[in-house]
Every structure is written in structure tokens, then in C-alpha cells.
């Protein structure tokens, strides 16, 4: 397992409530959604800034 993998799999425990959380990753499909939404945001803002668009 690479350092990157072991970091994303590392688990933090909150003793009080007994909650554990993985450091985790952003899944690839979700990163693609972020990228598509960002491109759409720039395009829509420029094209529809005024009603002359």
C-alpha cells in the first residue's frame, strides 16, 4: 500500500462519542462532477450576465 493510500485509509477516533472517521478520498466520479459544474458556472455566468446574452 502506498503512503497516499495508507493516508486516505487512516482512521481518526473521537473518544467522547466513539465516532471514527476515515481520512478518505474524493472519488473520481465526484471530482469529474466538480470539474463539469465549474466549467458550466463560468460559461453560464459569462453568457447570461445580461439579458443580451
Amino acid at each position, binding site marked *: 500500500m502506498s503512503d497516499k493510500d495508507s493516508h486516505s485509509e487512516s482512521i481518526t477516533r473521537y473518544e467522547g462519542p466513539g465516532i471514527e472517521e476515515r481520512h478518505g478520498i474524493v472519488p473520481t466520479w465526484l471530482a469529474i462532477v466538480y470539474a463539469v459544474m465549474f466549467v458550466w458556472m463560468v460559461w453560464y455566468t459569462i453568457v447570461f*450576465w445580461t439579458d443580451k446574452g
Partner: protein
Amino acid sequence: MSTTANAMFEHGPATPRVYATATGELFDRALILRYMAAASFWLVFAPTVGAIVALKFNYYDFLGHISWLTWGRLRPVHVMGVVFGGFSTAVIGLTYYIVPRLCGVPMYKERWGHHIFWMWNVGLAVGFISLALGYNSGIEAGEFPLWVSIPVEIVLCMLTIQVLGTVKNRTEQRLYVTLWYLTAAYIWTALNYAFGHFILPYSMPGVNNAAMHGLYIHYVVGLWITPAGLGVAYYFLPLAAKRPLYSHKLSLVGFWALAFFYPFVGTHHYIYSPIPYWTQTIAIVASMMLIIPVWTVVANFYGTFVGAWKQFQDSFPAKFIIIGALYYFIGCFQGSTEALREMQRLTHFTDFVIGHSHLTVFGTFVIWATAGMYWVTPRLAGRELYSKNCAQWHYWLTVVGFSIMAFDLTIQGLMQGTMLQAGADFVDSMSAMKPYWFVRSLAGITMDIGAALGFWNLYMTIKHGKLIPVPPGAPANYLPEPKWS
């Protein structure tokens, strides 16, 4: 376990006021259970008012001859009742449980808790009576008159101080995502409530007032209901799944994306209005960009449950969290896309919008708060859930009733919008909606029966649930593991 804490388990919340520091516990069991009972009451009361309001669409004269039971008086009671009565009371009670446990110290100024409880609940009761009597500030979701707004604002400020003070005094170094959401929610809401109740009704006339009202109402949804509900759900999610949270990184992205995009959403209710075009465009873009935090949260929730689906069968908090996440995904996607100009043209002034608001406020956040109530109540009472069957009925009547209602409102909204776009007469479009309204009322009544059963069950759990034996030598903060919750 201390003697006083044992007494709490044996006698339930009827035990005289017990402050956390007096028992060596982190939290005040009696106070939290009292909040759960009050939230249960409001969560039956407000939706029942909603059912009466819904029936008036089909039966115009139903209770119409009594002024305080007319549609215009009851509708704000329903909206304010669900938002501030049911949801917020549950969240405040759960805050008194969650924040000390995550911080490792008792709530800051914990003696304020009981004063806040009475100020909040008496304030709400006076507020609903005032609304029924016709005293209304005229700001949607901010309709309480001044004599109610002032104590509510004081309560919000006191709660904000308590949460911030507890976070400052914490012994746990890391801040779990729930603390970010709850802290932000209280700060934002103390400011937004003052804006909506003390500034907006008395300044900014005309279209500016409408624009700012759009901001206020969406800050109630996006900067109170959403972060407070997410904070509660994130706390109980890994506990109910009995697994680690899927991704800390995703929880960071979700929080900051919400904090960045939500403040710009407000004016999306005023597309095609005299508000500047670029302002409308920013609101549309911000609404669509909310897809990022919503999908991020949903990915994190379902990622956590992968491999733990058995919990869905065995645990009522898990059931409510999972179904709430599904409604969150559907409702928020609907909300984002309905901001688009083409969708606004079709859906504005139709029940599509009402379907969306119910999917998010009730379907998601009230249901997540309910999950928290199912987790906390038996543990703090030290008793088994009174009736598993009742809880099952609560869950399934809610799911079936609510799914029908949300689908019905969405379809009727699209249908009415299509009729109006095709040039149909407005009155004809209203007449065509009658069967849908009737189905909506029946679905709402189904949900109400479920809620009444569920919250009666929680009350009976506190009063008469089977006591869970406390192991000898258990620590002061010991919490039992009841079945089914």
C-alpha cells in the same frame, strides 16, 4: 456511576433538575429528554395544522367561519411550527447532547439550558397563538410579531454563546464535522434572525425588500436548517452504521461548498422580476453549484453505509438517516434545477415549489432530526424502546405518506405549469388540481398518524420503557445500548 445518575435511570426525567456538573456527567439528561418531549409535541402539532390547511384546498368552507382557523392564519402556524417548533426544538435538544460529547466538557453556562428551554417553548406557544390571532410581521418564515421575536433572538444568542464557549473549552483537539456545522448554524442564524425580524420589516421598501426577503428566507433554509440538520446527521451516521465515516475529506468539501455557494441563492425566487439580471444569474449559478455539496454529502453518507446495510434493518436511526439522504438527493437536485430560467417559467406559482420545500425541510431535515431523537431518547432514559411495532409504523407511514405527497405535488406542479404555458385559464388550471390536492391531504394525514404514533412511542419510552440494567462500576457517562435504536 454516581448515585444521582443512577437515580436518573431509575426514575426517568421526573427526577428534579440535575445539572451535568453535579452528577459528573457531560450532559444534562433531564434537560435533553425534556427537549425531546417538546420537539415530539411540536412535530405532531405543526404537521396536523398543515393537514387542516391542505384540506381547505378541497373543502373551501372547512373551519372557514372561525377567523383564527382560516387558511391565512393557519398557514404561517404550519410553516413556523415545522421550522422553529418541531425541527429547531429537536436540534437544540440534540445540541445539548452532541456538543459536550464532541468537546469532552459540559456545556458552557449549562444552567442557562433550562431557562432557554422555557423561553423557547413558551415563546413559540405565544408566537403560534399570536399568528392565529392575526398578528403577523408579513415576512415569510419570519412571521412572529416583535414580542415573540425578541425572546427568540435572545435564545439564539444565548445558544450561540453556549456552543462557542463549549468549543473554546474543549479537551478534544480535533473538531468533528458536526461541530463545524452546528457552530456555523448558530452564528449565522443569530445574525439572520435579527436581520429578518428587526431590520427587514422596518426598512428597504419595494423591490429591494423582496430581494432581501429572498435572502432571509433562504438563509433560514440554507444557513440554519441545512447546516444544523447536516450536523445532527453527520453525528449519528457513523454511530448508526457502526462504521467509520467514509471520508473526512468529503465532509470538508461539503461544508465549505455550502458556506460559499448558499449565501448567493436567495434571489432565485425572483427570476424575471425587476431585480437586476446579473443578480438573478448569480442566484441561478449558486443554486446549481449546490449540486457539489449535496452530491458530496450523499456520497459520504452512502459510502459510510456500504457494508453496513444490516443496520438499516436493525436500527431506526439508520433507517431514518438513509431515507433522509435519499430525499435530500432528490429534493436538492429539484431545487437546483428549478432555479434555471426555463424551469422557473414552468414551475413558478405551482405546487412543484411546495413539493421541493417539503422534500427538503421535512423529508430530509425533520427526518434526520427524528433519527437523532430515536438514538438519544432510549439511551438517556436508560430504557428500551417502548414498542418496536409503533416505531415501524412511524417509519413506514412516514415513508409511504411522504413519498406520495412529494410525488403528487411535483407532478401536479409540472401539470399546472404546462397548462398555463399552453394558455389555459388560471381558474381552469386550479380546478384540474383538485384530485391532486385531495391525494396530498390523504398523504399528509397518513404522515401525521405515523408521527403521532412515533412520538407517543418515544414519550412512552421515557415514561414506561423497560429499564436497561446498569453494569456495576459503570462510569458517570455510561450510556446503555438499547435494541433497535
